[in-house]
């Protein structure tokens, strides 16, 4: 995919506590042609979102240490930064009756890279 020089490259915030998986997710974002920004937990993610208004997509894990898990982080983002698109991923199946915030897509881990890339393209379009 080619990006015209005058268009800014979409920024994707990757939130994942496991370093190896964070590296991998960042690589997937790069392969999609976008720029990854990394956070190891929800608190870091919120701090980054507050300082960087150019983030368009958040790609987050659910199970993370600390108070806020990925679902709560997504709800918080949906409330505070409504235009941001969200991808949620987890090694656990979604608990029954989980209410996903609007414009949020779930992927079970391990996920197919090509599907995540296709979704990133759709969300950034």
């Amino acid at each position, binding site marked *: 995919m080619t990006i015209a020089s005058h268009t800014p490259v979409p920024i994707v915030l990757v939130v994942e506590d496991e370093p190896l*998986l964070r590296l991998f997710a960042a690589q997937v974002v790069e392969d999609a042609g976008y720029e990854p920004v990394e956070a190891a937990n929800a608190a870091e993610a919120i701090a980054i979102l507050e300082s960087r208004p150019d983030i368009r997509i958040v790609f987050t894990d659910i*199970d993370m240490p600390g108070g806020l898990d990925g679902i709560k982080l997504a709800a918080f983002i949906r409330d505070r930064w409504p235009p941001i698109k969200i991808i949620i991923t987890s090694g656990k*199946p979604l608990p029954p009756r989980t209410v996903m915030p609007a414009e949020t897509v779930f992927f079970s881990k*391990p*996920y*197919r*890279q090509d599907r995540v890339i296709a979704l990133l393209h759709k969300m950034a379009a």
Partner: protein
Amino acid sequence: MSEIQAARRADALKELAVLDTPEEQAFDDIVFIASRTCDTPIALISLLDYDRQWFKARVGLEVCQTEIAQSVCQIDVDDAEMLVIPDLTRDPRTAANPLVTGERAFRFYAGAPLVLRSGVVVGRLCVIDTKTRPEGLTPEQMTLLRALGRQVSDQLDLRRAAQVSARLLELQTALIEIGERIRASEEAVEMTSAAAAVVGRVLGVQRASFGLVDPDVEIVDVEADWTAPGVASIAGRHRFDDYGTLRADLVAGEPLVIEDVATDHRTSAHTDAMRALDIGALVNMPVRDHGRTVAIFIVNASRPRFWTPDEVLFLRSVAARLEAGVARLRAERQQSVLNDEINHRLKNMLSMVQAIASQTLRTVSQREPVESFERRLIALSAAHDVLLQKSWKDADLRTVAEAVIETVGFGERMTLDGPSVPLGARAALSFSLVVHELMTNACKYGAFCLDIGHVELTWTIEASGLIVRWRERGGPLVVAPSRKGFGSKLIRLGLTGTGGTELRYEPDGFEADLRASVEHLAQA
């Protein structure tokens, strides 16, 4: 008539459960025969309660009971001998009896004792005439009246035995029902509510409740509560000490059985508290866990009530079943938590393998093997998800197939049809890989290459076992590959990793038949 004998008699009659019951042919027949045999207008079966005599059967008398003081039958009854009074007006024991002096004008009396197998005398079979009989009964009439008296005693004992065994059957049936309801329950409160409802109904009590207790059994929190219509619930927290000295037995795991809260020494000082809850009699049955009382099964009757040993035993069995049921739920819950954790770690591990492989193989210019690796990994992971939902027991064949199809795509171009077939953990994993490879091949060379192509995946159970049929239609012309790659080797391993696979490259499209015995699938 001694007090102790009278008390034994009253207890025996209560045990017989015969007082105030409807007429019964067997007893009616006996009084009829007695009156004919002795040629008297009146014959009675008189049962001697504390304050009255009650007639189980009667001929020639319209009342069913009299005060005990008017009873001729009670005279010398504890001797268990025949009593014959030729002229009631001239016997000092009966001369002033209103039945003799009044308009009934009883004159002659003869009565045979009713002696139960336990030895207790409960009354008499008597014949009465309104004319005196200085000669009394003939020896033959005496013998027959005695024999009929023994018949009545036997009938009373048999009647009781039949009632006891009918009751036992009723309690056993209820226990079976409770066992089934407990087995079918997924929640503890569902188990206890079901048990309470059945117990309340079968014991005919006003309330049956289940409550958790603290380690010292000071407080009970009643959660499940069954009540008869119009009876208030006791759901909520109660302190045992507010109702009497009840804790010692419960802490020790012994049932607390109280027939009358007003007279029992453990509750007699707290009858107001009992009356406030409309409790006249109760059983509290401890439910134990690891040698401690953890809960109480409570049964309340609004009036004093005799609890038979069978009923107490029944409640003990109900408590034991609840214990086992709750223990089963806890074990299942722990197992489920453990399964979730194992699966989560396993899937995290698969994600790590994917991440490492992806990074390691980044520089490999040929992308196809790298992608197939990732997809096989994901197909395996999807099968794990299905197995986890079934706690690693049997996964359904269709569910496994659908999970794998979801990871590949093209679901809208596939038709699935077949009965429910349970797959063991190993079979589910190998089947998921086979379906994945078949789909991958269909994408590369078969039905999914062309827009109109589709696949039918059907399975049937036949005498030889399970047959899974993969039929591709509407694709390009297929030819057998010259080289066998890893994918086709996976397919040839079949449903259980032991073969049984037949592949055909037909002009209509590729076909595969996979065979395995159903037992093998579920075990594998």
